[in-house]
């Protein structure tokens, strides 16, 4: 759902253009696709820290009207109850500073987008939510949110700002040195505002499977932040190409490919995103189908697939068993870490167990492949120590 006309330039266009000429239109934005090379950029992010410009995405603030007169948990519960009309996650139950991954679902139980919703940590921001949706869906999502909550809350777009993702095992050290030492202390899936580079909103999150941050910064401060990060020896700029191979290795869904309006969160193996309170309340769009599948299982399931030989199986490749079609590849390519091809796709549930051998129809020729658990490469998020 890219916008018509010529693609928009990122606010930091000049910084990226000084480092690469390989740009491409993605969701209506002219995005850097590649710098040093897809594989070296991918490996750098797994070993050091990669800087991604994801300003094409849809950050926004969703807030009760000014002067709402309620405070603290009550204000949060009120604003959360409004957004819960669209998503199946327990947003009311978020603690201050907590972030949750969820989906906008339709009445048929399909997925209209996947997104992050955060409850600000600061007491003064009670009654606000920070919401980040996908680039290609943002206009649809914002319209849906406004329509469902008209007059009860306000949605303020923040996609005129820059969203920078810093990802990798040394991201915490870089963030501590360049932004604020407190960033190293944040836990995975938390949010906090910092008075640095103007005023920034930082989540400890990302879409590479690595530890890291996503930083919302005003456009006028963004170049200073990007340049300060790029000046650090551990940081290199990373293009959209490596962003895709990183998220695929991490077993994460790309909307429009691995998720779509006909696919349910249960089929997508995302049942963990629907917390108990919402399952019991049955009060979200598509609850009937989604909860039926939650109880009884879905007919198909998202799985990891490893081709047994070297040929990559990309999106659209048919998955067969004994000459019968049992599914389709929705994302596929090459894993630099495993040094071989990897794919994600949907198969009939009876064939979804790891270890099952299937055939991938690549250029008309069946090639053996094995169903494997996701992720392909273990996640390395910064979670609080238990105990």
């Amino acid at each position, binding site marked *: 759902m890219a916008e018509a006309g010529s693609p928009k330039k990122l606010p930091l266009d000049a910084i990226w253009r000084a480092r690469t000429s390989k740009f491409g239109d993605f969701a209506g934005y002219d995005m850097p696709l*590649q710098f040093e*090379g*897809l*594989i070296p950029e*991918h490996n750098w992010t797994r070993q050091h820290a990669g800087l991604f410009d994801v300003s094409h995405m849809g950050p926004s603030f969703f807030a009760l009207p000014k002067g709402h007169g309620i405070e603290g948990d009550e204000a949060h519960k009120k604003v959360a109850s409004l957004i819960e009309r669209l998503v199946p996650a327990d947003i009311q139950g978020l603690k201050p500073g907590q972030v949750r991954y969820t989906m906008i679902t339709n009445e048929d139980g399909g997925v209209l987008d996947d997104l992050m919703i955060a409850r600000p940590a600061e007491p003064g921001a009670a009654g606000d939510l920070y919401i980040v949706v996908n680039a290609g869906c943002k206009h649809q999502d914002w319209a849906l949110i406004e329509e469902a909550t008209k007059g009860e809350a306000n949605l303020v777009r923040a996609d005129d700002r820059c969203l920078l993702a810093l990802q990798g095992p040394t991201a915490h050290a870089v963030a501590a040195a360049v932004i604020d030492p407190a960033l190293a202390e944040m836990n995975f899936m938390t949010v906090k505002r910092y008075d640095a580079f103007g005023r920034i909103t930082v989540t400890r999150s990302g879409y590479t499977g690595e530890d890291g941050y996503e930083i919302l910064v005003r456009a006028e401060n963004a170049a200073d932040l990007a340049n300060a990060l790029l000046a650090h020896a551990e940081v290199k700029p990373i293009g959209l*190409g490596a962003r895709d*191979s990183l998220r695929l290795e991490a077993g994460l869904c790309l909307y429009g490919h691995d998720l779509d309006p006909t696919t349910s969160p249960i089929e997508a193996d995302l049942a963990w995103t629907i917390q108990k309170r919402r399952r019991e309340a049955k009060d979200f769009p598509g609850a009937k189908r989604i909860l039926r599948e939650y109880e009884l299982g879905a007919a198909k399931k998202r799985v990891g697939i490893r081709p047994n030989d*070297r*040929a*990559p199986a*990309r999106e659209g490749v048919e998955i067969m068993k004994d000459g019968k079609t049992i599914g389709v590849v929705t994302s596929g*390519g*090459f894993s*630099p870490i495993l040094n071989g*091809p990897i794919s994600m796709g949907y198969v009939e549930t009876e064939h979804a167990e790891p270890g099952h051998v299937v055939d991938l129809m690549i*250029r008309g020729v069946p090639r053996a492949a094995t169903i494997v658990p996701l992720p392909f490469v273990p996640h390395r998020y910064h979670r609080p120590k238990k105990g």
Partner: protein
Amino acid sequence: MTKRYTKDHEWVCLDGDIATIGISKYAAEQLGDVVYAELPAAGKSFAQGDDMAVVESAKTASDVYAPISGEIVEGNAAISGENWQIINDEPEAGGWFVKLKVSNKSELDALMDEAAYADYVKGL
């Protein structure tokens, strides 16, 4: 020996009636690191413009078209042996894809010489 290029970035080098075929340096650079390639078996025949081979990088899969009609006499053993790096390292030398027995040499006339191809790439 005559070397010619196609708009799809194959090169073909004719020696007698045997053509050596590969992808251009420009194509190899655009693709990035090759992670897979598939060559046709000896004995297979192709018409000019047919899908002949496949080359894949981490980024994408690309078809390699027959720049000239003929019958495959040999595939590059380095590529069949999964040494795909050679396509990136020496695209217009050791990284050749196939040798083909040409059926109609005059088809070369429609292709670009090195200078014309260099101009063509500059305009992309």
